[in-house]
């Protein structure tokens, strides 16, 4: 398969060797689970239960009316203890449902046991996916049923499964590809059926050759595997499409505009698992890693498990922690509270020691142009940052600041240690706020 590649990008140290050979394991049921009402991109959900209510495993406990949203479910059976504000990985406090598990794992009786998706209509499958609360598990957590409901005028011809996993440290997608290849292929087939597409492609970076070998055994001629060069941000939707199909998602557009739907391999697993067991999305794979945990792990954890439990499972801290990141080190968010629960978009937890979480004092831009070279979107980050600092938002917008995918490559490469991405984020927020007015 011909690979086209894309311009820009960086090569941060991969650090995947820390956890890549460790099979996915489960962790003991924690004493409390906090299911937040903000799990995904789109509208937050309203709790459907009250404190002291008994909930079954897989019971829907929150939903919303909006289109772009997905319901949340109880990860296990137990009692609702409290509905209050809890720390969200994004730094704010949001409404969450705290459940005290009873350990009985009683499954919600109304759950459909019908596992034959072939007999369902695409519309019914979309409904099932929505009801199962399945969202993109790559990180952005965009509700999957929205993604696979393209407007009729857009013709979709290809589905790409994203197995690039370009973020350093993270290995959960790699483990899924090794351990659950048949589910990945099954999930992809469900998606192809829903969208009426003949072509499915799984994109994998060439540092995961063994995953390619394993997956090859399960595919037919309708599915291809694209081996991509290892480069960050290969896993960005737009760049995946560009690298595999040489199609460019237009500025401000979606993959739909070039006839493509992209889903994470984890999402495919979740879809396939849902049709196998009938259970909604109540757990996900998380890589817990970093030089500062004693034994890095790939874990299958319930949504709502506090991060402290994950670190416990990974053997605890090696030395004093400096930074705990939800997600990978390039795009993840540093959290401040050890009680922060896992949400549907949490693909990894990376722990840095105090020494590694060093803060660099920025110096004046020396105009080396490296940020321009590495920007996968073809922007000029240092100029954008300068415009934002000088409050020249119109100029920044003309230079394409809104196209920024916040991959952080510019910030990573900058020899002057300038917080370019922070400025660009500020600028984007300001421009969007002004637009709304």
């Amino acid at each position, binding site marked *: 398969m011909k690979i086209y590649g894309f311009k820009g990008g960086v090569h941060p140290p991969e650090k995947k060797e820390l956890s890549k050979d460790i099979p996915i394991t489960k962790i003991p049921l924690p004493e409390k689970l906090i299911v937040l009402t903000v799990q995904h991109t789109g509208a937050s959900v309203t709790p459907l239960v009250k404190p002291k209510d008994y909930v079954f495993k897989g019971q829907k406990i929150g939903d919303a009316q909006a289109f772009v949203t997905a319901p949340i479910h109880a990860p296990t059976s137990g009692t609702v203890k409290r509905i209050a504000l809890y720390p969200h990985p994004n730094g704010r406090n949001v409404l969450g449902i705290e459940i005290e598990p009873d350990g009985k794992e009683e499954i919600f009786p109304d759950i459909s046991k019908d596992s034959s998706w072939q007999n369902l209509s695409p519309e019914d499958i979309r409904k099932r996916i929505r009801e199962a609360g399945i969202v993109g598990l790559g990180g952005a957590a965009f509700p999957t049923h929205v993604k696979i409901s393209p407007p009729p005028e857009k013709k979709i011809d290809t589905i790409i499964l994203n197995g690039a996993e370009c973020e350093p440290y993270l290995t959960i997608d790699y483990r899924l590809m090794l351990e659950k290849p048949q589910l990945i292929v099954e999930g992809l087939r469900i998606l192809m059926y829903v969208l009426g597409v003949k072509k499915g492609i799984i994109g994998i970076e060439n540092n995961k050759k063994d995953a390619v070998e394993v997956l090859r055994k399960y595919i037919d001629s309708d599915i291809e595997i694209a081996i991509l060069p290892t480069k960050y941000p290969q896993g960005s939707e737009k760049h995946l499409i560009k690298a595999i199909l040489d199609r460019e998602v237009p500025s401000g557009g979606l993959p739909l505009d070039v006839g493509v739907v992209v889903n994470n391999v984890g999402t495919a697993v979740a879809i396939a698992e849902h049709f196998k067991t009938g259970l909604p999305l109540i757990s996900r794979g998380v890589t817990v890693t970093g030089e500062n945990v004693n034994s890095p792990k790939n874990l299958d954890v319930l949504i709502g498990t506090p991060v402290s439990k994950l670190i416990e499972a990974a053997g605890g801290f090696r030395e004093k922690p*400096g930074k705990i990141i939800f997600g990978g080190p390039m*795009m993840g968010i540093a959290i401040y509270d050890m009680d922060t629960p896992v949400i549907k978009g949490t693909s990894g937890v990376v722990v840095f020691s105090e020494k590694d979480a060093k803060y*660099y004092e920025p110096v*004046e831009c020396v105009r080396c*142009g490296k940020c321009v070279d590495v920007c996968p979107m073809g922007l*000029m980050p240092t100029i954008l940052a300068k415009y934002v600092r000088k409050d020249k938002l119109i100029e920044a917008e003309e230079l394409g600041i809104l196209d920024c995918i916040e991959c952080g490559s510019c910030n990573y490469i900058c*020899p002057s240690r300038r917080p370019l991405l*922070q400025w660009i984020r500020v600028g984007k927020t300001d421009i969007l706020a002004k637009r709304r007015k």
Partner: protein
Amino acid sequence: MKSEMDKLIVSSSPHIFVKEDVSYAMRQVIYALIPATLAGVYFFGLYSLWVILVSIISAVLWEAFALFLRKKPLNILLDFSAVVTGLLLALTLPPKVPLWIPVIGSGVAILLGKQVFGGLGDNFLNPALVGRAFLLSSYPQIMTSWIEPIHKIGGMVSQASPLTSTATPLAIVKLKLTGYQLPSYWHLFIGDIPGCIGETSALLLLLGGVYLIYKEIVDWRIPLSYILTVFIISLLFGKDPIFQILAGGLFLGAFFMATDWVTTPLTKKGKVIFGIGAGFFTMVIRLFGIYPEGVSYGILVMNALTPLIDRTIKPRKFGEVRK
């Protein structure tokens, strides 16, 4: 757990950074210049080592002085940019200049070429070249008095006694001077010819330049387009293109000055334009100007045009809809 929680660092992504910072890059430039510097000292004698040392030390002191005046922390000195400026300035001086020349030159370079604009990153002209241009127009006699190398490659001792004044190969050609012999390509390439301390050895400068390109400190586009432009224009005007490339400070300029991060365009396309422009102006000065050598002014002119290039040349945006 609570106590640890208080200490967690919160910052926005990304959370990892390259090791190579500005100071690292500047140190690489210094390493890359060492061969040509040592060759200069070998060719022109120990006195030129003094010139180099005085230039570097005074550049650092001037920088410290400026930082003190501007109430800036002195640890900015650790970016090594003043050392690079001092070294580059010294390498563009004739070997027997009096020692106050590098002191004044580096003062102008650091104070008027860099710090008045706000220090490293805000200067729009290459500081070392500002210093050199100042010296050249202020003390033209001192700045154009050359000596024969005291050591020659291959055991050949120079015929003329050292310290007698001589002329650079470019001056011999440009001014149609009689009584001088033009060095062969080989000598031009090796560098045992009259010229500035660090500009004569094309070989060692090329070596340093390739090292910097390999280390991804400089972009190959500028030196290549620069040298190529000089080559083509010489060809068009019936000059010996190999001579035009090897003689004078073209290699020093193309690899070490025209590639200065701060004063060259951001984009790759812009860098090519910069190289072509510098080559063009260098040749215009060499062919039609009053100076035999045009590298420093060629680069300075393009430095001044860099903001314009950056305004016009933008990288192609991903997914840009062509109108």
